[in-house]
């Protein structure tokens, strides 16, 4: 059933089942996810290092809190929201773009056939 489908992009339906389409689809999505993940992993994995190597700075007081407590206990949550918001917006527009590309291709192929 699948072997018949691997033919070159002659048909719009075939295109969505082609190797190149899938590869670009996965690559773009993974790139977006990894970019967003890196931005919070740097903060999440970097904070213990700051605590480890700069204990004096991190235990400095800000309005009663130590700096490290303020970051981990409060400021981390808005950061997570920010990243989630950017990701959701971008991934919705990425999906729209992908749909638009497929539809454009369909139109292109539909005209000469008639």
């Amino acid at each position, binding site marked *: 059933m699948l072997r018949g489908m691997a033919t070159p992009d002659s048909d719009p339906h075939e295109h969505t089942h082609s190797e190149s389409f*899938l590869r670009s689809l996965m690559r773009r999505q993974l790139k977006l996810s990894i970019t967003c993940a890196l931005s919070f992993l740097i903060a999440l994995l970097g904070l213990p290092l700051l605590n*480890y190597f700069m204990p004096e700075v991190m235990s400095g007081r800000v309005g009663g809190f130590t700096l490290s*407590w303020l970051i981990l*206990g409060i400021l*981390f*949550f808005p950061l997570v929201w920010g990243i989630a918001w950017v990701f959701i917006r971008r991934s919705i527009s990425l999906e729209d773009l992908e749909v638009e590309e497929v539809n454009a291709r369909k139109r292109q192929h539909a005209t000469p056939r008639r």
Partner: protein
Amino acid sequence: MMLAAFDVWILSFSALTVLVTIGMGYWAAQKSRTASDFFVAGRGVSVGWNASAISGEYLSSASFMGVAGMVMSSGYDALWYPVCYACGYLFLLLFIAGPLRRFGAYTIPDFAEGRYDSPLFRKIAVIFVLFIGFFYTMPQMKGAGTTLSYIFKDISWFGEKGLPYPVGVVLVGGVITFNVAVGGMKGITLVQAFQYWLKMFAISVPVFVLMSVYGSYGTQLSVQGQPASAAVVQTASSGGAATAESLRKPLPTKAPVDASWLNPFGPLTSKAAKAAKIEGPASRPYALLYTYSLIIAIVCGTAGLPHILVRFYTNPDGVAAKRTTMWVMILIGVFYVFPPVFGVMGRNLLPALYEGTGVNGTDKIVLELPKVLDAAGGPGSIRWGSILSGITCAGAFAAFMSTFSGLLVSMTGALAHDVYGRMLRPESSAADRMQMFKWCAALTGGVATLLGCFVEPLEINFMVGQAFAIAAASYFPLLFMSVWWRGMTLQGAATGMLSGGIFALMAVALTNVSTLSLDKGPMGRLFAPFAPLNDFWAHHPLLRILCEQPAIWTVPMSIMLMILVSKLTRSSIPSDVRLKMLVLHAPEKLGLKQDYIREHEGVGH
């Protein structure tokens, strides 16, 4: 004279929560008729309801009681838990939620079977749903036992200590099991959503009231690191509401000192090194290792919790699923700011809890802290402390009831849908399965209650962290790799998931039995044969850390095994893997899922 035995406010708020929960569940059960309704709430739940319901299910006893208790007992290091619970959710959104939803299956076992065309793999996945589920129900039961023995602490006809812990566990376990058996999931979506808002109200309002009387979060923290006498002088000279009470009570000797409590790498993360007599700067590398392992466990473990994943299917489409997740992040993020405040204030105002163990330890700080207001107010005034304490008790009920019900549904679903419906009696009718759902609920509820009776000496939050560590080493690699790597084979996936999960499970179990053997109560006698392990830990602090927090080695091990075995068995990559990847990644608007299902049927699968 009976009523004088317990606080009227606390009892009535708690009773109301239980009654409303059961009432709503029962009412919703009248409306859930079909099997699809029963298992995933018919896939038609709106974004607001679904986000509240997911948050309600996610905020368990660990979040409501455990985080506060652990911040009080261990200080800064415990803050990693709430932050990683929230970050883990983000990780789930980035890598797993979208593809899994597009794939369209009810449960992880459905996904495992669908991705690899293997009924055998489904069976393995089902067993893991049960394993992780039971591990996660234990802390919920501890929360239940703690809350009930707090509410009935003055009753004398159960003996001197008030209501025994196991009685509370059995009582709550029974009520929730019954509720799930009659309501199914539809009931639970509504109840969970209600319970999120109850928990949010119950955690935030007492904090604001306490802060208005005793000073803000920052003020409470600022006295840490100063001698107690200085704090008293400061308050007395500034006057105000806090003069009657000093800002801080003297700490018992069992409490960690300010410097190690307030700063990173404190009692929680450097415990193993301390047991091995490694103190000061030399203990810091151990503490850093512990911290990283904890972060990995919780962030990756969130992505693998069975009862959280199933909720992604209750959205009508992919965009709604993403919006729901955004709202969940906001709802749980706002919530998580509050429990540590209880921990900080508890250290200042109720340090006596450091001396208690089990149900009388720091895990009950959320319940008991508001009561200090009673002592602060003059005689004859309204007992605001009791009212607020009643509200936090109601919140605690909501916390363990909602998470326990959610887990029970997903575990019962696995038993009824997979074990009975597919393995034991594939020819059974839908009505048979509905009937079986009720029996399976009773069975899982019973086992979970029994397990809950054993864990009184363990900290709630700690146990939840361990459930996450097991999920992180089994489901997370399975989902992550299956979604993003085409080269995965059935053998690779199964080897990685099983070895990661089993190693994590064994490591965690070893730590727990050795901790239980130290208990002074009945559990200590039961687990006494494991006491020599503690000597071993004292000589090998590194091994202790790697067993207590295994994620740092089990997660990479699991992923490596998946890659290695998949490469070795390359010939058995499913032939239609491209189509499956397409369904996982192509936007739903392209409508490729229909193709996939039709072609699948065509093959005569």
